[in-house]
C-alpha cells in the first residue's frame, strides 16, 4: 500500500533553525564524522611521545629550564598544533571533501553556527588527546615552579587558537593539511623565530609567554604579559571563526 504523501506535521515547518540549535546539530554531526579509531589512535600515539620524553627527562633529574623547553618545544610546537590541524581542518574540510556539506549548508540556518559547532567538535576531540599527555609530561619531568598549571593554561589557550585557525583553513582551502603543516613547521617553527615583529603573528609566541610568565624560565621570543598571552590568541580565534563563517557563506558547495 502506498503511504500517504501528506507531511505528518500537516503544516509548514518553521522556516529557520535557531543559532544555538544549529551549533548543537553541527557539533553532533561533525564530532561523529571526526571520530575514527585510526585517527584517534594515531594522534594519541603522537601525543604520548611528549609523555615519554617528560618521563625520560624526569628520570634524568633535569631542571625546570629543561622541562619548560621540552614542553614548549615538543608539546606546544608540534603536538598541540598538529592534532588541532588534523581535527580543526577536517571539521568542515572533510564535509566539503566527501560532499556531505550540502546536508548542513542547504538548510535554513546561519553560517556561523555551523562553523562554531564544527570548531567545538574539533576542540572536544583535540583537547583530551593533547592536554592529558602534555600535562602528564610536565608532571613526569618532576620539575617544580608552576610548570604544571602553566602547561595546562597555555595548552588550553593554544587549543582554542589553533583549532579555530585550522577550522578556518579547512573552510578556505582544499589542501588544508599541507598549508597547515607549512604554517606550523615553516612559519611558526622557522620564520617566526627570526624576529619579534614576525613572531607576533605566531600563536607559539603567546603560549611561550604564558609559560615564561608562570614559571620564570627565560625563553626566546616570549616577552608578552600573561594577559596578552591569553587575550590575543582568543581574539585570533574569534577572527578566524568569523573569517571561516564569511567564507562558508560564499563558497561553492558540491
Amino acid at each position, binding site marked *: 500500500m502506498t503511504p500517504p504523501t501528506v507531511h505528518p*506535521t500537516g503544516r509548514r515547518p518553521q522556516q529557520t533553525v535557531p543559532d544555538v540549535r544549529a551549533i548543537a546539530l553541527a557539533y553532533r554531526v561533525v564530532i561523529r564524522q571526526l571520530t575514527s579509531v585510526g585517527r584517534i589512535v594515531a594522534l594519541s600515539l603522537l601525543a604520548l611521545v611528549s609523555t615519554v620524553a617528560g618521563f625520560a627527562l624526569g628520570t634524568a633529574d633535569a631542571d625546570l629550564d629543561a622541562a619548560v623547553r621540552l614542553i614548549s618545544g615538543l608539546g606546544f610546537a608540534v603536538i598541540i598544533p598538529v592534532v588541532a590541524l588534523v581535527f580543526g581542518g577536517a571539521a568542515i574540510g572533510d564535509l566539503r571533501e566527501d560532499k556531505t556539506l550540502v546536508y548542513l549548508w*542547504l538548510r535554513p540556518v546561519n553560517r556561523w553556527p555551523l562553523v562554531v559547532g564544527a570548531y567545538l567538535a574539533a576542540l572536544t576531540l583535540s583537547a583530551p588527546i593533547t592536554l592529558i599527555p602534555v600535562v602528564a609530561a610536565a608532571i613526569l619531568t618532576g620539575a617544580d615552579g608552576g610548570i604544571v598549571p602553566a602547561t595546562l593554561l597555555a595548552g588550553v589557550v593554544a587549543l582554542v587558537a589553533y583549532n579555530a585557525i585550522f577550522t578556518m583553513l579547512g573552510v578556505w582551502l582544499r589542501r588544508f593539511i599541507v598549508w597547515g603543516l607549512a604554517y606550523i613547521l615553516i612559519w611558526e617553527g622557522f620564520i617566526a623565530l627570526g624576529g619579534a615583529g614576525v613572531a607576533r603573528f605566531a600563536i607559539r609566541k603567546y603560549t611561550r609567554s604564558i609559560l615564561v610568565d608562570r614559571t620564570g624560565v627565560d625563553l626566546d621570543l616570549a616577552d608578552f604579559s600573561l594577559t596578552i598571552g591569553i587575550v590575543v590568541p582568543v581574539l585570533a580565534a574569534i577572527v578566524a571563526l568569523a573569517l571561516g563563517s564569511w567564507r562558508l557563506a560564499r563558497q561553492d558547495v558540491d
Partner: protein
Amino acid sequence: MTDFPPPPTSAPPAAATLPPPVIGAAAPPASFAPPTGPPPLAGPAPALPDLTGMIAVNGVSKFFGSVVAVSEVRFAIDGGVTALLGPNGAGKSTLFRMMCGLTPTSRGTVRVLGADPRLDRDVRGRIALVPQQDALFDHLDAYSMVLIAAQTHGLDDAGAIARWALEQVDLTDVGDKPVGKFSKGMRQRVKVACALVNDPDVLILDEPLTGLDPVQRRRMIALFHRLGDAGRCVLVSSHVLDEVARLGSRVLVIAQGRLIATGDYRDLRALMDDRPLRIRLAVSDPRRMAAALIERNLVTAVSVAADRLTLDTLDADALGRTVAPLAIELGVHLTEVSPLDDDLESVFRYLVEGR
C-alpha cells in the same frame, strides 16, 4: 566493404522561435532552439522580460574559468513534475546547484519562490535537493541520517517526520545498519527521504533513479507524481530517455550547457522519431538482404561489411516489422538486429547538429 550511395537525408527540424518557456499547468508545445555557436562573452544581451514561476531562471550562464558549463539558459517552472533531460556533462548538475544556491551564477538570475536561494535563508527551508553525488554520513543508520535532515530544518517532531519520510521510500525495515553499507539504490532512497522531510515546495532531484531496481524506480516515479499533483514543483534530471518518458510529459532539454528544447515530451519524442535511425543487421547474405530492403524503400542508406548490414532508416517501426519476414522470404539467416544510435547522445547530436 560496399557503400551504397545514400539518398538525401531528411533535414533536421527547423529552428523555431523559442516562446517564453514557462512550464506549468498550461505548458506550451515543444520548441526547438539549436545553439548558435559559443555564447557572447561581451556586449549586452537583448533585454528580455524576466520570467516568473516557482523556479525562474533568467539568462543564466556559468563559467568555470574558460569553460562554459551553462550558457544563457532561460525558463520558468511551476508546480508539477518536470524532467530536465540531457546527456552527461550537459550542465544539468551545475544548473541544479545554481537553483539551490550552492554556486553563484556567472550571469543572469535564479529565483526560487521569488527569492535568491544563495542569499535568502528562509527560502532554503522550502527547497530540497537530492544531489547526484553518492554522499551520505556513512556511519549513521538510515533513521539517524534522515533525523538529522529533519532537525537541520528546525522541525519540532523530527523523529516522526523521519519515520514518515523513510516510509515514503520503503526504508522502514533496514534496522540500524549504517548507510555506508547500503547498496547504491538504498542510498538513493535515503537521499530522497532526506529531501522529503521539510515538505518542500521545490524539490530538485539530480538523477534520483540511478541504481534503483525497476520496482523501486516505478515507486519513486509514482512518489514524484504524487508530490507534483499536490502542487509541489518537482524537477528531475536524467540522461536516460525512456526514464524521462515515465517521469512526466513536461521536459527541458539541455545539451552543451544550452537549453535546446522545452515543452511536452510527446512532441519532443515525435521530433526525435523523425530523425534517421541507424540499425545493424547480421545476416547470412547481406547483399541480397540490402537489395530487398532498398527495393522496398525502407532504408535511406546501406553499407555492407562481411555478414553485417548497417542501415539508415526513417521508419524504424516499418523496418522492424518487415525485416524478419523478409529474411524468411529470402531464405537468409538473420542473427542480429540492433539499433546503433538509440542513445541520448545521438538524439542530441541530431537535435543540435542535424546529423
